[in-house]
């Protein structure tokens, strides 16, 4: 099979996902367009060689609806021959888009393809696309549906992470993100977002709070006590009768931030890269997706990691650095606990607790972060993964070339 290489990766800074956020007045189409243009322009890419653009988007309705990938490619003045498809694997949509782009290269369907994603959460709110899972009684009962936050709290309860544990993790995320920005570790992939005139409107992640302390976090009320008390705790205990009660430890400060942003990663075969004079930066070692118990929802990362490692013929210790999306602090703590991964190998430049999680875009963003970090820190292998709604997990292992 053809090898798939990563030639470039870009991401927008992440704007606060509310009306006061800097990117609220920029359309999701514009965010995706700017990411695609950046990939093209930085690489002087003849886009007629790009066979497909695959973008993750979790709420593909309204302005994000009707295949935003194709629409953004057209708006970015890509060749009209470049196809586009939008995919949804909830929080791993961006990574899934990258895996699909890589897979298309591997099987020879595409010579070059772009994966990535977009989510303007301030403009198209989470849940705007509805869906049957929580609303249709037939499936909601069967799967003990409960909101993600209740699942995250259930993980904390089941595996013994206290409020202090999750808060301490959150502070470390903030610190690492702040250091990464200070040291310019994201420089290679950040593309400032321009406004309607073409002036820069945002050039940094604006969700970060580097001055966060245990005390400041302690003042935050847990977010899912109300939901849990209304009945979701009782529902999730039907799947986990071993839990007497659910310890609600997550709050806005130790969960991923709601933000706007877009990402794009350029994949291609060796030949295609040579033809266009591009230098490969990393190679795909393996990819995987799994499903696990949907009620607790967020335990997928350790399982999908095991699967991806197996496919690559590797072991946990063979990976130099891990990147797991920080949807909730307990998700990361659980994966480190389950696979015995030291914290200094995990999310070395902080994560979504500090910088935010623009749902469909995140996978592409953190994949790019790892490509940059392998080069910066002179490491060989990285594994990127995300927990995913309904109990799924998606992972990618890359190797620097």
């Amino acid at each position, binding site marked *: 099979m053809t090898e798939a290489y990563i030639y470039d990766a870009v991401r927008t800074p992440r704007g606060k996902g509310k009306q006061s956020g800097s990117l609220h007045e920029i359309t999701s189409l514009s965010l995706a367009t700017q990411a695609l243009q950046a990939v093209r322009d930085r690489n002087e890419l003849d886009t007629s060689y790009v066979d497909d653009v695959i973008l993750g988007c979790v709420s593909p309705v309204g302005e994000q609806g009707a295949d935003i990938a194709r629409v953004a490619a057209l708006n970015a003045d890509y060749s009209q021959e470049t196809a586009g498809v939008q995919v949804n694997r909830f929080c791993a949509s961006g990574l899934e888009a990258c895996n699909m782009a890589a897979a298309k290269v591997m099987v020879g369907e595409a010579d070059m393809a772009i994966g990535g994603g977009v989510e303007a959460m301030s403009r198209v709110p989470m*849940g705007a696309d509805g869906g049957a899972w929580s*609303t*249709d*009684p037939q499936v*909601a009962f069967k799967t003990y549906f409960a909101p993600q936050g209740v699942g995250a709290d259930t993980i904390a309860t089941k595996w013994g992470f206290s409020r202090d544990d999750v808060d301490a993790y959150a502070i470390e995320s903030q610190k690492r993100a702040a250091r990464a920005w200070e040291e310019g570790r994201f420089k290679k992939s950040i593309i400032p977002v321009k406004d309607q005139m073409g002036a820069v409107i945002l050039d940094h992640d604006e969700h970060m709070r580097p001055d966060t302390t245990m005390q400041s976090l302690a003042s935050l009320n847990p977010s899912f006590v109300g939901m849990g008390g209304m009945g979701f705790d009782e*529902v999730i205990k*039907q799947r986990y009768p*071993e839990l*007497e009660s659910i310890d609600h430890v997550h709050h806005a400060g130790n969960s991923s931030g709601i933000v706007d942003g877009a990402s794009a990663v350029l994949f291609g075969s060796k030949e295609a890269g040579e033809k266009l004079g591009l230098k490969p930066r990393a190679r795909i070692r393996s990819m995987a997706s799994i499903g696990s118990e949907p009620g607790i929802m967020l335990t997928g990362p350790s399982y999908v990691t095991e699967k991806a490692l197996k496919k690559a013929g590797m072991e946990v210790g063979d990976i130099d650095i891990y990147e797991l999306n920080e949807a909730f602090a307990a998700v990361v703590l659980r994966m480190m606990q389950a696979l015995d991964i030291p914290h200094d190998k995990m999310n070395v430049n902080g994560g979504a607790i500090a910088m935010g999680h623009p749902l469909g875009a995140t996978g592409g963003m953190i994949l790019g972060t790892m490509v940059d970090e392998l080069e910066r820190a002179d490491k060989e292998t990285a594994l990127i993964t995300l927990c995913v709604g309904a109990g799924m997990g998606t992972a990618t292992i890359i190797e620097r070339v």
Partner: protein
Amino acid sequence: MNLETFKFDIDGDGIAHAVFDVPGRSMNTLTGKAVADIVAIAKEVASNDKIKGLVISSGKPSGFCAGADLGEMGNRAGSSDDSAKSEDEKLKERFEQGFTLNKTLRQLETCGKPVACALNGLALGGGLEVVLACHYRVAANDNPKQQFGLPEAKIGLLPGAGGTQRLPRLVGVQAALPLILQGTSFDAKKAHEMGVIQELAPGADVVEKAKAWVKANPEAKAPWDEKGFKVPGGVPHKSPGAGQVATMSNMMVAAKTYGNFPAQKNILSCVYEGIQVPIDAGLRIETRYFINTQSRPEAKAMIRSLFLSTQALSKGGNRPDGYPKTEFKKIAVVGAGLMGAGIAYVQAKAGIPTVLVDVSKENAEKGKDYSRRLVEKDVSRGKSTQEKGDKLLDLITTTDNYDDVKGADLVIEAVFENEELKAKITKQAEAVLGEDAVFGSNTSTLPITGLAKASDRPENFIGIHFFSPVERMGLVEIISGEKTTEATLAKAIDYVLAIRKTPIAVNDSRGFYTSRCFGTYTREGMEMLAEGIKPAIIENVGRQSGMPMGPLEVSDSVGLDTALKVTRATAEAMGVDIQTDDRTQFLAWLVEDNGRVGRKAGKGFYDYNEKGKPERLWPDLNTRIDVTVDECPPELKQHYINRLLIRQAIEVARCFEEGVITDARDGDIGSILAWGFAPYTGGCCSYVDLIWGIKPFVEEAKKMEEKYGERFAVPQLLKDMAEKGEGFYDRFPPGGVKAKEAA
């Protein structure tokens, strides 16, 4: 038209009037014949040009209609068609049958002529569904018995004649769902506020008002047939708020029912799916879910136990024939403690003159205070009037003198569980009682035959086991001793009916039927604890099995000191060494080493708050148990649920085997009303017969016996029944005492 259940005429203005009046019944129900009549009426109204509109009303003073005929429906529920037709053909046939009323009401609703109904009295279930299909609904504003509701869910069904479609379209999903899910009824005022009723008028005028509306509105249409109709509050996936309502409703029902009631989920689905499509499709969806629900064993079990059997027993279904009904002119209650005081209250409430006896007049008065407090509460809440309350209290005479007992038809002894004391009271009372008077002992465990030894007339001696709190618990267990006669049993049953409770009739044994079987649940919980199953698992699984509380919490409410005493006594009686018995040792550690005697002390298996509510399981439980099971995936959970319920069902089977109970209805109703056995099963007997089926049950029970030992030993009776393919209802059919000989 040849109608049996309706009177039908057409007036000079061309307005037809259909009067619902099922012959020979005090209350209209939607029998098969009534449905056929409605079909005929709808056809006539649609096709007869002389008819300009229709008014529907009732010929019964009781009201319009109480709903489906549950006798007929109970027979259909859970039944299967063994014919050679394909599954698909059978389902489609069932659909056609099930869709009849829906189709007819829809035809009436869309026939182009105005249809109004005039209501004076109750309209429940299918009755209300007929009403909802009318274009205009007038109800009496001066009839206190006026009541509306869709109570199908209470017996494991769902409204299958348009109720799940029309009510949400009329009042919105959020307002309609609780009414359908809980089956709550509401009065005319609320119905009018919600728009279920459009006009209120004096009962005498409702028909005229309905006719007037029909005359004035020759081209009526249901709101949902109007162009641009919008469901109040919106529809899921079309307006975000409605999606939230769906999500939260699912959560609330799942949290409350643990998914044990098929009808609950199916009601949610009828509304969720039906509201998104035009009403004709919605009605089809409703019928499909109705048939799905009806074919589940839970539906058959619930209809039979919660409606048919409960009603039969509440009317004396287990009373021996051939004895005249006893009218109680005077009843004495000896012992004015909690139980005696409660018994005095329910008697007085039923209008029976009551003498409350205790060692001193003062003590007896204290017992009467209990009634005073209850009366006061009812009056302050508007549930009763001062006048009625005073009358009730006047019926209770307090005394310390047995001379006042003279002339009583019945004496109920309700002193604490001490054989000597009970014997003394028996003698004192009998000294002043007439030859025919019955002596009833309120005991929960002491064998009646033994207590009757103190009596000169053991044939008139009977156990009358009340549950606490007396005024709230609907069940009374009547225990015949060896010498108790049928005549005495008949009187005792008359008594229970007179105080408006449900009697079950059982025979003598330690713990009789209810106390004996109930204890197996708590004991199995403690066995699980001793095995090293994490306490939270035991408690959650207990609740999720459908029991009202986890077994450890139940033990706390009974009292762990009591449990320890009983355990030691039982162990001794059975020759078990209590020093090596895990359960006894565990209880002794809790009670004697740690002073944790249960809820009354604020600490037992749980820690309790000041209000007596459990706060958390006592964390130190883990210091004494070696937890070996701390995860409970679904298969294991199902195993534990089976374990807890099967343990109880086996004890029930033993009671049948020993002749302690003799009527499957007593077994079912007793288990639900006395100790809250998972109601969706229809009770312990229906759990075996319907939820499992006798053969699979015995198979599973044998596996449990192998795994957990003798306490799960499958009685020979069950093995025999399995061999013959007989359930409890085949072997111990309704018939109570008479069936005893047959068994």
